[in-house]
C-alpha cells in the first residue's frame, strides 16, 4: 500500500487547472490550445505512471479513510480517460475552427470539457462508491452544459433529454448505493469508510443477499442509463449526434466506459454476496438487448453521427455481456473497452471534420469522401473497419476472444444470437460506409484535406488499434490479467 497524494494530484489537478486557465486565457490563441494539450498530457503521464505502479504490485491510496485508490481497473480507465482528453484538447473546438464557434463558446467548451475530464477521473479513482456516484452524477451536469454549444432546437432538445434521463437514471443508482450502505450499516454499524469499495468487498460475505440483489437492480438500471444500455439508451443517440464532436468523442469513448466501470465495481461486490449467477444473468440480458436494439437500429439509420452512437450502444452491450462470461470474458471485455475507446473517439473527431466540410449530418448527402478528404476518409474507413471487428485491428481480437469465452462458457446459443446481430450490424454499417466513401463528391463541396495536421494525432489512433490487433503490449496484457483477478469472478 502506498498512501501518497502525488500521483493522484498529478492525475486530477491538471484538468482542474485547465478549467481555471480556460477562464483567463484568450480562447483563440494557439497557446491556450497548447496549454490544454500539455496539461492533458501531464494527466496522461500520471495515468501511465499509475499503471506502472500497479504493475509493480503497488495499490496507491490517498485521502482520509482511503477515499481514493487505484488498482489495475482504475488505472486502465484513467489511461483511457486521459487519452481521450488529450485528443480532445488537441482536436476540440479551438484555433482553426473560428468559422464554427465564437470565442465564448470555445471558452465554455474548454472549461466544461476539462471539468468533465476531471469528474470522470475522480469517478474511476474514487474508492468510496458514494464519491464515485457523485462524480458520475457530476459528469452528466458538466457535459450537458456544452451539448448545446451552438444553440439550436435540436441541440437544446438533446441536452434536455440527456440531463433529465441521465439524472433520473443516476438518481436510481444512488438509491442502489444507499441500499447497499443500508445493508452494511445494518450489519456492521455506521462507519466513515463504510462506502469504500474495499470495505464493502471485504465484508461481502455477511451482507444480505435479498437486499444486495435489490440494490444491484437499482444500480444496474442507474449506471446502465449512463452506459447506454437498452432500454435506457434513448438519450444517447440524441446527445452524441448533437454535441460538438469533441464532446461526443469523450462521451462515447470514455463516459460509457466509466459507467460500465461503476457497474463492474458493484458487480464484484454483488457476486461475492450472492454468487455470480444473478448479476451475470442481468448483465447478459441487458447486454443482449442493447446489442439487438442497436444492431437493428443501424440498418436504416440516416445520420452518421447517430450511426456511431448506435454502434457505441452495440459495443457497450457486447462489453456488458463479456463481463458475465467468466475470466476470459472479462479479459475480452476490457480489451474491447480499450479498443472501443480508441476507435470511437477517433470516429467522432473525424465525423466532426466531415460535418464541417459537407455541412450535413445525413449519410445520403455525403459521398466521395475518399476523394474529398483522402486522409479523413481513409482514417474513417479504417476506424469503421476496426469497429466492425476486422483484422488487423484490435477489435477483431477482442471480439474473437469474447465469443470464444462465450462458447467456452457453454453459452453457444447465446453466442449464436450474438453472431447474428453482429452480422446485421456489420452489413448495415458497411453499407453506410460504402455510400459515404465512394461515389461522386457533391459539387459544392471543396476538395482537399485542409488543415491536414489536425488528423495527425488520429493516425496515431489507427496505429494504436493495429498494435492492439497484432501484438498487445505485454504491460497491457499484465494489466488486463490483474483486472481479471479483481473483476473476473
Amino acid at each position, binding site marked *: 500500500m502506498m498512501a501518497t497524494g502525488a500521483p493522484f494530484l498529478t492525475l486530477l489537478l491538471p484538468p482542474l487547472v485547465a478549467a481555471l486557465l480556460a477562464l483567463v486565457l484568450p480562447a483563440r490563441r494557439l497557446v491556450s490550445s497548447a496549454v490544454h494539450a500539455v496539461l492533458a498530457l501531464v494527466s496522461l503521464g500520471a495515468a501511465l505512471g499509475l499503471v506502472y505502479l500497479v504493475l509493480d504490485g503497488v495499490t496507491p491510496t490517498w485521502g482520509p479513510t482511503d477515499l481514493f485508490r487505484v488498482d489495475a481497473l482504475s488505472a486502465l480507465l484513467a489511461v483511457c480517460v486521459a487519452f481521450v482528453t488529450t485528443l480532445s484538447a488537441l482536436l476540440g473546438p479551438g484555433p482553426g475552427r473560428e468559422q464554427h464557434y465564437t470565442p465564448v463558446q470555445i471558452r465554455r467548451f474548454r472549461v466544461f470539457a476539462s471539468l468533465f475530464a476531471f469528474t470522470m477521473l475522480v469517478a474511476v479513482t474514487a474508492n468510496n462508491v458514494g464519491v464515485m456516484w457523485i462524480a458520475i452524477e457530476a459528469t452528466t451536469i458538466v457535459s450537458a452544459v456544452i451539448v448545446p454549444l451552438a444553440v439550436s432546437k435540436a441541440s437544446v432538445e438533446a441536452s434536455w433529454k440527456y440531463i433529465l434521463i441521465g439524472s433520473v437514471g443516476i438518481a436510481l443508482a444512488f438509491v442502489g448505493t444507499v441500499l447497499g450502505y443500508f445493508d452494511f450499516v445494518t450489519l456492521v454499524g455506521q462507519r*466513515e469508510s463504510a462506502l469504500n469499495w474495499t470495505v464493502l468487498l471485504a465484508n461481502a460475505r455477511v451482507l444480505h443477499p435479498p437486499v444486495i440483489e435489490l440494490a444491484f437492480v437499482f444500480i444496474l438500471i442507474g449506471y446502465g442509463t449512463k452506459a447506454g444500455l437498452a432500454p435506457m439508451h434513448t438519450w444517447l443517440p440524441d446527445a452524441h449526434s448533437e454535441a460538438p464532436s469533441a464532446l461526443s468523442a469523450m462521451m462515447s469513448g470514455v463516459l460509457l466506459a466509466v459507467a460500465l466501470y461503476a457497474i463492474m465495481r458493484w458487480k464484484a461486490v454483488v457476486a461475492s454476496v450472492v454468487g455470480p449467477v444473478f448479476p451475470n444473468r442481468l448483465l447478459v440480458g441487458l447486454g443482449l438487448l442493447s446489442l439487438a436494439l442497436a444492431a437493428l437500429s443501424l440498418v436504416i439509420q440516416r445520420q452518421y453521427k447517430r450511426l456511431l452512437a448506435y454502434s457505441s450502444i452495440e459495443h457497450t452491450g457486447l462489453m456488458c455481456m463479456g463481463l458475465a462470461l467468466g475470466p476470459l470474458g472479462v479479459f475480452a471485455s476490457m480489451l474491447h473497452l480499450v479498443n472501443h475507446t480508441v476507435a470511437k473517439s477517433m470516429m467522432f473527431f473525424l465525423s466532426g471534420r466531415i460535418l464541417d466540410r459537407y455541412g450535413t449530418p445525413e449519410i445520403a448527402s455525403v459521398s466521395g469522401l475518399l476523394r474529398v478528404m483522402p486522409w479523413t476518409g481513409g482514417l474513417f474507413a479504417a476506424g469503421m473497419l476496426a469497429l466492425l471487428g476486422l483484422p488487423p485491428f484490435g477489435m477483431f481480437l477482442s471480439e474473437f476472444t469474447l465469443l470464444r469465452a462465450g462458447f467456452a462458457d457453454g453459452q453457444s446459443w447465446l453466442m449464436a444470437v450474438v453472431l447474428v446481430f453482429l452480422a446485421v450490424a456489420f452489413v448495415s454499417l458497411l453499407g453506410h460506409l460504402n455510400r459515404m466513401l465512394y461515389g461522386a463528391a457533391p459539387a459544392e463541396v471543396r476538395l482537399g484535406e485542409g488543415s491536414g495536421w489536425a488528423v495527425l494525432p488520429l493516425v496515431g489512433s489507427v496505429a494504436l488499434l493495429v498494435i492492439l490487433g497484432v501484438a498487445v503490449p505485454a504491460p497491457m496484457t499484465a494489466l488486463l490479467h490483474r483486472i481479471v483477478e479483481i473483476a473476473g469472478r
Partner: protein
Amino acid sequence: MVSQLSVGGSTLVLLGGLMMLWRRGVAAHIGAFTFQSVALAATMAMVGWFAGDWQLWAVAAALLLVKGIGIPLLLKRMERRFGSERELEPYVNTATSLLIGGLLVLLAYIVTAPLVSVSRLPTRTGMPLAIGLVFVSLFIIISRKKALTQVLGFLMLENGIALLAVLGTHGIPIIVEIGVFLDVALGFIVMQVFVYQIHETFESIDVEQLNRLRE
C-alpha cells in the same frame, strides 16, 4: 415512538408528492415541493434528535436552506416567467394518477419487504414510503408535460432518496452528503438554465414539442 414519528414524517413527505399529482397550477406544485422539503427536513431533524447525531441536524438545516427556501425562490422566479403555462393535459388524468400513485406505494411495500425485515433501526418502518415517493416522483416525471414539472418531479425524487437514506441508515457519510448536496444544487441550476433555453428556442416549456430527434 420513533417508529411512529418516522412513519408520520414520511407520510407527510409522500403526501407532498401526491399533491403534485393532484394539483395543476405551477404555484401549487411549488408549494407542494416546499411543503415536502420542510417535512423532510423536520423528519431528518427528528431522527437526528433520537439518534443523537449532530451531523443529521446539520444536514437537515442545509436541506431546509437549499430545498425549503433557496430552490423554491428560484422556482417562484420561473413561475413568474412561465406562470401562464399550466399542466392542462397531463398524459394521465388526475383521478387515474392518484390511483396509480397509490398502487406504486403498494409496490414499494412489496419491494422493500427484505429491507424492513433485515433492519433493526426503529426508523425502518418508513422506508417503504420513501421508496414509494421515489416511484411516485418517477411517475410525475413520466406523465407531466411541462419541463418545470419534470424538474420538480426530479427534485422530489431526490427528496425520496434522502428520506430513504435517513430512515435506513441515519444518514450517509458526511463527505458523500456534501457532494450530493453540491450535485443537487448544480444539477438544479443547470436544469433551470435549460428550462429557460427551452422557453427561448421553443417559446413554450412544453416538453412534448421536443420530438425532432428520432430514429
